[in-house]
């Protein structure tokens, strides 16, 4: 009994790791570039890796490096980090509807691994998500981020630019690869993605909102608007 249980857990973990491979690939160029910039900003290898280990948020780490370079105060950097990552509240709340019930401690541990990418991969899965899956998925992504931050610091400057250019598309390709299968034959998904894309483009290009807030606001507008429309039509188009 116990053996089958642990075998089940291992399989779930393995599924999560497999699901996270595309993220691990996608993180490679971004983490390498981060390590490279951290070095040119004047951080030590320890500080560079520690930031990836403790903060683990691509965009805010880039922004922090930029602000350190401009000698901006540390409290401002911490506050900006909070604003940039406020969207994780929304992701965590959405994920809560999709993961299996489990102890608060286990959830508290794997919630550390919620990023735009792990959230996207997890939430487009058809079935309920197990805790083992979440651990596997977040582990492989985190491992890639931390490892390649260090690699970037050590060898980044020697990478050919063609490689760096081509790799810059990786995460976007992944987001598209996750969205398109759900898009097929599902008008609701098309409207959700399209509405949020339009609002986010308008907000950021007209500089109405910072990127961090813009993603939150346009996602909420789209999610609420489309839900209202589908309720008025009286149909639950979900499953």
């Amino acid at each position, binding site marked *: 009994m116990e053996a089958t249980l642990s075998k089940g857990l291992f399989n779930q973990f393995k599924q999560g790791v497999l699901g996270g491979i595309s993220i691990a690939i996608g993180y490679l160029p971004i983490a390498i570039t981060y390590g490279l910039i951290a070095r040119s900003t004047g951080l030590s290898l320890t500080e560079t890796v520690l930031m990836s280990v403790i903060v683990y948020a691509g965009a805010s780490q880039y922004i922090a490096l930029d602000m350190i370079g401009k000698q901006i105060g540390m409290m401002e950097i911490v506050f900006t980090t909070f604003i940039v990552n406020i969207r994780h509240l929304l992701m965590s709340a959405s994920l809560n509807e999709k993961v299996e019930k489990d102890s608060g401690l286990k959830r508290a541990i794997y919630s550390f691994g919620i990023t735009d990418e792990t959230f996207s991969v997890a939430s487009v899965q058809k079935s309920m998500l197990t805790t083992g899956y979440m651990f596997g998925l977040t582990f492989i992504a985190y491992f890639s981020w931390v490892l390649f931050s260090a690699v970037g610091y050590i060898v980044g400057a020697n990478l050919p630019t063609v490689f760096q250019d081509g790799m810059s598309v990786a995460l976007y390709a992944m987001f598209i690869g996750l969205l398109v299968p759900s898009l097929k034959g599902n008008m609701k*998904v098309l409207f959700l993605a399209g509405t949020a894309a339009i609002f986010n483009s308008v907000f950021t290009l007209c500089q109405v909102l910072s990127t961090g807030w813009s993603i939150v606001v346009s996602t909420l507008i789209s999610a609420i608007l489309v839900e209202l429309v589908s309720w008025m039509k009286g149909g639950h188009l979900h499953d």
Partner: protein
Amino acid sequence: MISPIIWMIIGMGVATYVPRMIPLVVLQKIQFPPFIQGVLKNVPYAILGALIFPGIFFIQDEIWFGIVGAIIAFLLSYIGANVIIVVIGTISILSIVSYLT
């Protein structure tokens, strides 16, 4: 002796972790009304739209780079390729296109 940078990193870590953790731990026992549940289930698809646009246009100085990348990724995933194949395929084709032009 802990350097100021390390303190800042710890502060950033807390600022990032708290929004990630609170809903998953606190909301577990709360049953939302169907409308809110519907909105939360919509979030992934809406957020994917916002994560892709307009960011993909600005991955390189030249806007066509992102547009071509988006088209390749769309076509690969439309014909049913696995996400990993979409990522590797888009990187490869785009690198070749960029190398040739």
